């Protein structure tokens, strides 16, 4: 079906919907995952879904996020983050930083059954070189050490006016580990 005719509905009004899948990656004991064609020139708002991610080391966070700026990975402590931690055993914490080298769009998970991290993260303004790149996120997970259901919600920012053209996901706790498993899907929200 010719795209032009589809856009004006001449062939039955086909609208493919405005949540457009850009790329899905399935982790298999990877030291990191990289999304390098995020179509930041097309979408001002992205959605990154983490589905059943597990770290290779217990109680590590399998989806810490960094940005590539014009192809260069930003790994300095220049990100800011603020999140609310909620756990089913009644533990609630505020966790924030004005100088951190990643944005935590996930929370600790484990290697055992059901010990997965699941989250969504909206990413804003990545392709706009005149604006900072923001994230808002919400997670649900179980780890190995405590085992209770826990959740976080919050936001992060790379306060630099730059073009973000790639995403870098890695697993870490006190040390780095691998992303043992999980499905990571990046979408664009189109007008």
């Amino acid at each position: 079906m010719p795209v032009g005719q589809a856009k004006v509905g001449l062939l039955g009004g086909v609208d493919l919907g405005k949540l457009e899948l850009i790329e899905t990656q399935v982790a298999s004991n990877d030291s990191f995952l990289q999304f390098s064609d995020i179509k930041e020139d097309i979408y001002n708002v992205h959605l990154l879904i983490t589905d059943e991610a597990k770290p290779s080391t217990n109680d590590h966070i399998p989806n810490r996020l960094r940005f590539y700026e014009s192809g260069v990975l930003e790994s300095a402590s220049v990100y800011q983050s603020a999140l609310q931690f909620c756990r089913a055993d009644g533990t609630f914490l505020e966790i924030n930083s004005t100088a951190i080298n990643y944005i935590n769009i996930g929370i600790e998970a484990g290697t055992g059954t059901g010990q997965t991290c699941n989250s969504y993260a909206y990413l804003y303004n990545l392709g706009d070189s005149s604006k900072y790149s923001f994230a808002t996120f919400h997670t649900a997970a179980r780890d190995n050490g405590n085992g209770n259901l826990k959740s976080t919600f919050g936001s992060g920012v790379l306060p630099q006016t730059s073009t973000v053209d790639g995403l870098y996901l890695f697993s870490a706790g006190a040390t780095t580990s691998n992303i043992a498993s999980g499905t990571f899907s990046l979408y664009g929200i189109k007008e």
Partner: protein
Amino acid sequence: MAGSLEFIKSTTYSGVSSFSITDCFSAKYDVYKVVADDIVTSTQAFLRLRFINSSGTIISTNDYDFADLFLKADATFTQRIYKSVDDIFDFNLSDGSLSGGAGNTIAEIYNPFDTSYTNLSWEASNIYSSTYGVGLKGVGVLKQSTSITGMHFLTNTGTVTSTIKVYGYK
């Protein structure tokens, strides 16, 4: 095959203290996504939300409740709880014309068109005090059994520039 997030309307306003998006809610959808991005204000200001009913009236009576949490990168978080007020005051907090610091809000609006209360949840991100990141997570309700067809946005001070996009969940 049609997708499930369907675009309804987009409106961009520049340098105004208030603006409306009309006729964006209908019987076609029960749940809507509202994306407000590139929110820039002339000074540090809140972007406030009121709903518009099917008669075209902007609802400004004290029938809104909301609660939210400001998550600050540099300080203790702030809870805000308001009952029976005349708007959703905290739809976004913008730090003005800080270079690069355009804020964003994504909201889910539940059942606006049917004649029951209209509920919403939202999350936002921005910079405040010119330096620090801040997130915002909130819930709210308009306690009127009335059909809602649009939204009205206004600042508490200064002017705003933003693009608002409305989608329906199919």
